[in-house]
């Protein structure tokens, strides 16, 4: 295997992994603050993809379509908490909350099928080019650069918000000790709503960046959702840096698995996840036990 081929595999893996990292980060944010594993996270990505395709199809420029997509999926994330999970969180068990998110994912798929049809939908690359860029004999498509750059910006913004702002401190404190967060004057339910919205925004970024690369269908989100969970688990469930590491690791695993069989790519990479977890049960960066806002 020559170096250029290896670099090509890495570029492909990191590009795919960046999308998984964005989805995984959304899972982790919501789980840390609310204790809920939101199986509809992948569908939020799908909605993000469908919206950007629709907006661009209607002639909107990127500068308007991107923020509109992120804002709408942010609101959709908030709505999921406000109308479905928020009211159930105090009385619901972990299993019932999980089932609600599974139900929501099916409802969102159904509505997407009604609204956008069953056929794959496409949109052009953000900056169409006749040929990919070639660096060190490695070809990189312009959309790959958009994906890596976009996810880096999204994760960077998330990091700055979490580390440097009052809302970020409130989010982190609510995930560490929700009772003490309330005793500090923080409205933990409002913070949970924001966590769902932020997870929606991260999924939207993944979806809108991915849309030009694949044919987006109503079912696209479910597989990517599973991979987002897998990425979060590999990194160490509950760990925010772990979500990024896990996403990239899963992308690279898939890229390597494609050498064996593109058809079995997903199966092989998920099998590798099982093997990673057998060796490192808490994931690469170690998971953490999470006190949740449920019932406080």
């Amino acid at each position, binding site marked *: 295997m020559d170096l250029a081929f290896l670099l090509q595999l890495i570029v492909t893996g990191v590009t795919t992994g960046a999308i998984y990292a964005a989805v995984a980060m959304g899972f982790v944010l919501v789980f840390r603050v609310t204790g809920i594993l939101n199986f509809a996270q992948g569908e939020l990505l799908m909605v993000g993809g469908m919206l950007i395709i629709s907006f661009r199809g209607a002639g909107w420029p990127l500068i308007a379509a991107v923020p509109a997509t992120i804002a709408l999926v942010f609101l959709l994330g908030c709505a999921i908490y406000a109308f479905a999970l928020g009211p159930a969180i105090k009385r619901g068990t972990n299993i019932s909350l999980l089932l609600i998110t599974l139900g929501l994912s099916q409802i969102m798929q159904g509505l997407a099928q009604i609204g956008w049809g069953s056929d794959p939908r496409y949109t052009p690359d953000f900056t169409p080019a006749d040929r990919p860029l070639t660096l060190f004999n490695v070809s990189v498509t312009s959309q790959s650069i958009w994906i890596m750059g976009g996810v880096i910006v999204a994760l960077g913004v998330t990091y700055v918000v979490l580390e440097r702002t009052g809302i970020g401190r409130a989010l982190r404190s609510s995930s560490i000790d929700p009772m003490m967060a309330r*005793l500090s004057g923080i409205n933990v339910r409002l913070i949970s709503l924001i966590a769902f919205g932020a997870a929606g925004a991260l999924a939207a970024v993944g979806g809108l960046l991915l849309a030009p690369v694949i044919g987006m269908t109503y079912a696209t989100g479910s597989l990517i959702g599973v991979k987002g969970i897998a990425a979060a688990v590999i990194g160490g469930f509950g760990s925010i840096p772990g979500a990024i590491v896990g996403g990239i690791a899963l992308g690279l695993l898939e890229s390597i698995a494609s050498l064996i069989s593109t058809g079995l790519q997903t199966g092989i990479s998920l099998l590798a996840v099982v093997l990673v977890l057998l060796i490192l049960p808490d994931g690469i960066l170690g998971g953490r036990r999470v006190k949740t806002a449920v019932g406080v």
Partner: protein
Amino acid sequence: MTEPADTILEIDSVVSGYGELEILHGATLDVRAGEIVALIGSNGAGKTSLMKTITGLLKVRSGDIRLHGQSITGASVEAIVRKGISLVPEGRHVFAGMKVEDNLLLGAYGLSKSERDAKLKETLERFPLLQERAKQDAGSLSGGQQQLLVVARALMRSPSVLLLDEPSLGLSPLMVETVFEVIASLRQSGVSVLLVEQNVVAGLELADRAYVIENGAIARSGIASDLLADPTLSNSFLGSAAQ
């Protein structure tokens, strides 16, 4: 009943509990401006439940709680905290994984940036031990330092009333002394304190007045030094230390 004019916090015939279990059966007490009030009682008497009820963590089933004469019964925990009641619960509830400075800023959550920054500066000057460790992970502090941090965080909002639940539990004698010095200094800063303290003698020595809670209701009350000298109380709560 008409309360003295300087009464800050009034607990009036409060009933509360967990689920179907009623713990407080009509507890009544008050805390006045700038005084330290000790709440003593055996395990399970209802001390912690009363603290949780005042802050809204437990629902008031009947009775009323008033702060500055205004009812806060039924208000959310966040609203009660913002109105001026801060609780330091039992155990050292720092936000581990976050810096000492961030822990303190959370105590002033919701205030304007200039107010937060001013309070942070003032608090770090007041607690030099925390100033030295401002950038350190709160989880890496010793038990005593964590307790100081939790008390300092509760003071960030300049509360009218500070509720302290077992602040010296599990601390070294030296750190107990430091924590008690901080509590005593609150009297000068005009903060009223309701104190639950497992070291009853130390708690009564620190307090101006005290209430004895038994089976979820106030059984006795009086000047702390009088209760400390009372032989009947000594037999019940103070043990050989006071005899």
